[in-house]
């Protein structure tokens, strides 16, 4: 009796122990996931706080107006001058070139892979394109320097092949795989019924792609383009190597120029912590951050509008 009772108690306590351990495990994992979630937000807020703390003091020395619209950047002179207009315009040019090349090619390629290509071709080509995304940016910079810049120089009869155009072309190659891969997924997610219905109404394959598949996948395609543009704006190593790095405000993409990311990378090594140059580079970082944020917000608005249109 006693033995039985004690056995029973052992069993119950074992069971309880097990439950307790499970509950504990559950709790532990729950809080772990919660912490991971919180951590990303903390890190993001930390980055914003750091950019503001290190970057804003520059405006005590250089008024924002002069900082944004000044065209002279002489950080190591006495007295130093900080005007980031050349960098801002350079970033615009490079991103514009990259987008103008990668979006039409990328979306067309995605449409081909998703709608036209036989399964076998798609299954071979897509992984190959995705490998392109894995090429390190310094390697792309090297290719741009050695192969593309002489080509650009002779094709456009330029003084030097190190130009915003060369950088833009290299960046378009880097954002292409993202645009193709994400748009292709989006196009394939459009229900086949839509296409069947279009064909039943007598639409050609082109008309189906143009008026059914692409509009149907527009949110995904827009997201793909935004990801590509984001990559082009933020890419540093390649533009540092091939864009040329001249400090004039570029009036055409064929000139050598220095985008914002390259300006930060090439200046930070020399900047004294807390010094004016250091602050001005952080302020450029802050502007880059705001620009990327704006791109994402615009993308969000577009997607939202698109969804509403479809729900009607």
């Amino acid at each position, binding site marked *: 009796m006693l033995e039985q009772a004690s056995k029973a108690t052992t069993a119950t306590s074992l069971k309880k122990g097990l439950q*307790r351990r499970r*509950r*504990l495990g559950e709790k532990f994992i729950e809080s772990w996931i919660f912490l991971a979630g919180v951590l990303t937000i903390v890190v993001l807020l930390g980055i914003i706080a750091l950019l503001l703390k290190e970057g804003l003091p520059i405006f005590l020395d250089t008024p924002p107006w002069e900082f944004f619209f000044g*065209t*002279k950047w*002489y*950080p*190591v*002179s006495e007295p130093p001058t900080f005007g980031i207009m*050349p960098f801002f315009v350079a970033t615009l040019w490079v991103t514009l070139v990259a987008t103008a090349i990668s979006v039409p090619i990328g979306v067309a390629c995605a449409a081909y892979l998703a709608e036209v290509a036989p399964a076998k071709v798609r299954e071979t080509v897509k992984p190959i394109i995705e490998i392109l995304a894995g090429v390190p940016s310094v390697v792309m910079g090297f290719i741009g*320097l*050695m192969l593309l*810049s*002489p080509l650009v*120089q002779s094709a456009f009869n330029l*003084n*030097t*092949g*190190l130009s915003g155009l060369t950088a833009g072309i290299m960046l378009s190659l880097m954002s292409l795989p993202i645009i193709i891969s994400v748009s292709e997924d989006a196009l394939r997610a459009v229900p086949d019924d839509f296409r069947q219905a279009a064909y039943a109404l007598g639409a050609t394959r082109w008309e189906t792609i143009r008026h059914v598949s692409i509009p149907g996948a527009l949110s995904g395609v827009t997201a793909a383009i935004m990801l590509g543009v984001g990559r082009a704006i933020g890419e540093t190593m390649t533009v*540092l*190597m091939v864009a*040329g*790095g*001249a*400090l*004039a*405000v570029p009036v055409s993409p064929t000139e*050598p120029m*220095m985008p914002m990311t*390259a300006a930060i*990378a*090439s*200046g*930070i*090594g*020399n900047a*004294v912590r807390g010094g004016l*140059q250091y602050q001005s580079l952080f302020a450029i970082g802050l502007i880059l951050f705001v620009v990327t944020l704006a791109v994402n917000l615009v993308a969000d608005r577009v997607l939202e509008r698109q969804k509403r249109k479809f729900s009607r």
Partner: protein
Amino acid sequence: MITRNNKYRKGWPGLILTVILTLIAGCSSQSTTTPTSGEPSGSFSIIGSNTVTPLTSVWAEEFMKAHPKVNIAVSGPGSGAGIASLINGTTDICQASRTIKQREIDQAKANGVEPYEIQVATDALSVVVNPSNSISELTITQLSAIYTNQITNWKEVGGKDAPIVAIARDTNSGTHVFFKEHVVQMPGLSSEDKSLEYGTKVLLLPSTEEGVSEVTRNPNAIFYPGLGYLTSEVKPLAIKKTADSPGVLPSIETALDGTYPVARPLLYYTNGIPTGILKDFIDYCLSSEGQVKVTEVGYVPLK
């Protein structure tokens, strides 16, 4: 459950305490300069010139490899900041690519610091063009005009009718400042102008290698790499101080005898004559073994 939780919580302070104690122990063991006999040990810092930093880093790495108990911290905010650190007593060695000014010596003496100068290497900047370029020499004034975008065509300096692509290092580089102060602003010439800056059309490249490779490919380019970067694929120009003086080609000899105009000493400053571990390190830098590294990094050795 509550007890278990408490147990976990109790574990944390202990762990944190251990970590903190380890850190404190780690810090306190890094005391400065231990003078010595036998195996040198201790730690010291070298602050100053951005240009000398690559050379100092190589020396420091080699020295630390040979003497594992030694810890050297190298940083390169600039020669001026390095000299300020020496004056304030926050660095053991100041690396500089210019000589100390009288005003700085006075400040140092007022602070009880005796700056002691040691030349560790020489730096000569060669000005190079593509081998297909017919130009073989330029004056300092012409170089200044090229780098301020006042001269934009090779025919203005006696070459063919082609645009000049002027290439410089980025602002990260001490060479960027050196070339600006010693060539672009034409010091010692009647046309000296301290307010001159690089022109905005000048290409600022992130590395010397990249500048050299662009000159190799581009028949219209001009660039100023260190002597160590000269290859058969680029043509060094003879530099004339004034239009009447003879053109001097960059070489170890002309840099050493002072006839090449774009050369300068690379210096270390210490507080008084170095002793102990500082002496060991500087002796290594000046030894033939250390001077081999000078050539490898691209500067001109002392002998």
